[in-house]
C-alpha cells in the first residue's frame, strides 16, 4: 500500500512541479511539490551556502579587500600553520571548549534532573534560573566585566577572596573568568535539555527499581544517567560548537589579552580580517573552525553510537 503510494507520487512529481499554482483537482490527490520548499531553499542558499562556498574559495586567495583577490594556492594554509599565535589560538579554543564541557556537563545534568522533579519550590527557583538564557552574550559579558572590575566591582570589596589581583591580568585567571562566565550563561540551556529528557524517562523503570529496593542514588546512576545518554551527546555537541565559536565574550571581557593569552581562533579570525585586513588568512581560519567543529561532532556521534540509538529519542 505504502510502496504504491510512493511510486505514484514519484511519477506525478513532474506534474506537480510544473503546476506551481496548486490546482484544486490534480494536486489534492498527491503530495506537496518542491515549490513549497523552494523559497526557503533559495533564501538559505543565497545567504548561507553561497557565503560558505565563498569563504572556502577565499581561503585559497590572497586579498586585502581593495585590489582583486588573487589565487594563492595553499599559501594561507601554510602561513597559518607557521604562525605561532594561530597554533596557540587553536589550542586555546580547544582548551576553553574542553574545560567548558567538563564543568558544565555534570552541573547541568544534576540541575536538570533536579528540576525535572516535583519539589515545591522548584517553580520559583527555576524562574530565576533561566534568566541568563534570555540575555545576549554581549549583555552577559558587559555585566560580568562590571561585576569583576578590579576598581569598582566585587574584587575591590572582597579582597579576602580575590587578593588585589586583576582577574583579567593573568592568563590562568582570565581563562577562569571566561569559563565561569560561559558556565553562568549556558548551564541553564543545558539544564533545560536534561530536564526535558529526565521527564521523559519511563516511570515504570523507577517503580521497578523501588520494588527492588534501589535507593535514590542507585536509581540516578543506573536508570537516569543511562537514559540521558542521547541528551548528553546533543548537549555536548552544542557545547563544542558553541565553545569553538565563542566570540563576543572574549571581545568584551578580555580583548584576547593579556597579550594573546586568550586570543582564541574565532577572535583571531576577526582580527585578521577587520584589523589586519588579511581576508585570505581570516577565511582560512574560518574554514578551519568549521572543519574542527564538524570533525569533533562526527567523532562524538560515532564514538557514542548516537546514530544507532534512535529508540531512546522517542518521547523527547
Amino acid at each position: 500500500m505504502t510502496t504504491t503510494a510512493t511510486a505514484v507520487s514519484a511519477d506525478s512529481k513532474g506534474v506537480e512541479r510544473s503546476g506551481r499554482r496548486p490546482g484544486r483537482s490534480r494536486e489534492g490527490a498527491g503530495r506537496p511539490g518542491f515549490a513549497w520548499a523552494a523559497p526557503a531553499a533559495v533564501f538559505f542558499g543565497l545567504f548561507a551556502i553561497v557565503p560558505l562556498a565563498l569563504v572556502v574559495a577565499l581561503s585559497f586567495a590572497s586579498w586585502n579587500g581593495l585590489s582583486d583577490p588573487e589565487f594563492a594556492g595553499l599559501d594561507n594554509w601554510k602561513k597559518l600553520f607557521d604562525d605561532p599565535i594561530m597554533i596557540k589560538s587553536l589550542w586555546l579554543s580547544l582548551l576553553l571548549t574542553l574545560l567548558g564541557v567538563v564543568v558544565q556537563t555534570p552541573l547541568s545534568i544534576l540541575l536538570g534532573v533536579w528540576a525535572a522533579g516535583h519539589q515545591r519550590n522548584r517553580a520559583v527557583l527555576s524562574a530565576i534560573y533561566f534568566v541568563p538564557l534570555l540575555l545576549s552574550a554581549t549583555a552577559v559579558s558587559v555585566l560580568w566585566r562590571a561585576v569583576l572590575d578590579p576598581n569598582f566591582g566585587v574584587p575591590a570589596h572582597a579582597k579576602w577572596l580575590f587578593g588585589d589581583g586583576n582577574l583579567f591580568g593573568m592568563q590562568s585567571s582570565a581563562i577562569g573568568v571566561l569559563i565561569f562566565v560561559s558556565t553562568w550563561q549556558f548551564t541553564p540551556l543545558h539544564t533545560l535539555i536534561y530536564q526535558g529528557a529526565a521527564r521523559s524517562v519511563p516511570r515504570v523503570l523507577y517503580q521497578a527499581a523501588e520494588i527492588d529496593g534501589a535507593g535514590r542514588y542507585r536509581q540516578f546512576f543506573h536508570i537516569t544517567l543511562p537514559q540521558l545518554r542521547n541528551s548528553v551527546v546533543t548537549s555536548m555537541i552544542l557545547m563544542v560548537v558553541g565553545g569553538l565559536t565563542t566570540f563576543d565574550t572574549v571581545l568584551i571581557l578580555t580583548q584576547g589579552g593579556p597579550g594573546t593569552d586568550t586570543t582564541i581562533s574565532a577572535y583571531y579570525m576577526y582580527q585578521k580580517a577587520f584589523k589586519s585586513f588579511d581576508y585570505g588568512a581570516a577565511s582560512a581560519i574560518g574554514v578551519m573552525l568549521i572543519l574542527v567543529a564538524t570533525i569533533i561532532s562526527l567523532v562524538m556521534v560515532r564514538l557514542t553510537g548516537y546514530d544507532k540509538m534512535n529508540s531512546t529519542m522517542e518521547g523527547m
Partner: protein
Amino acid sequence: MSRRRPNILAGFGSTVWLLVVGLPLYVMLVATFQNRADYGSNGPFALPEHFTLDNYVDDFNSGFGQYFLNTVIVTLSVVAIVVLLVAPLSYAIVRSRSRMTGLVFRLFLLGLAIPSQAVIVPMFFAMSEVGLYDNLIGIILPTAAFAMPVCALILTGVMRDITPELYEAMTMDGATHRRVFFQLVLPLSKSGLSTIVVFSALQAWNGFLFPLVLTQSAGSKVITMGLYDFQTEHGVDMPGMLAAVVLSMLPILLVYLFARRALVQGLMGVGGK
C-alpha cells in the same frame, strides 16, 4: 511519591546555583538605581543611598531609543521571514516525496554545523557590493538565514507528529495543498510555531557579530552594538553601563515574566529534539 524523604543534597546544590545566578542580577539591578559616586564608595552589594533613575534617562538620551527601535525592526523582520519561509518548507519536508526536497533538507542539516562567524568575511563584502552595508536589511537577511536550520528542525519534528489519517481524510474531501496547509498543518503545529518565533526572536534580539561587522553609523545600530560602544567608550560609568544592560534585556524579560511557561517549553524543544 509522598513517602520520599526530601533530597537535602539536591536542595542545597540548587540553592547555591540560585545564588550564583541571582547575585550578579541583584548587583546589576541595584547598581542602576544609584549614582556613580555612591556605587564607587559603597560597593556593588549596597542598597542605593539616593535612589535615582538618571542612569536610565541618560542612556535613553544617548541614543538607546534609536537602537531600541532598530532592534525591534530587525527582530520583527527576522521572525516574519523565518516563519513565512520555514513553515511551508517543513510541510514540504514532511509530506513531499520529491527528491529535491530531500536534498534541501540535507542542506539545512548541513547548515546546523556552520557557525555564522565563518562566513562573516564574504558576507561583509557581499553586503557592501549590493549596497546593504550599514543598512538594517543587511543584518536582517543573514540573521534570518542562520536561524532557519534549527527552526526547520524543530518544526519538522512537530509536523511529523500529525497523523497520516488526518491528511488522508482532508485529501479525500478534495482539499488542495493550500487548504491542507492552512486548515490542518498550521493549526496543529502551533506549539512548534511559537517555539520558532521565540527562538528566532532571541537570535535576532541578541545578535552581535552581524551588526558588528555589517553596520557602522548610529542610525543603523542595534542594542547590542549600543552596549558594546558604551563598554568601550564609557567603561568606568558602571551604573550607566549596567542600566544599558537592563534596557537591552527589558522587553525579553517582560515577555519572560508573562509567558514563562511557553518560553521555557519553546527553548526546551531547541535542545530536546
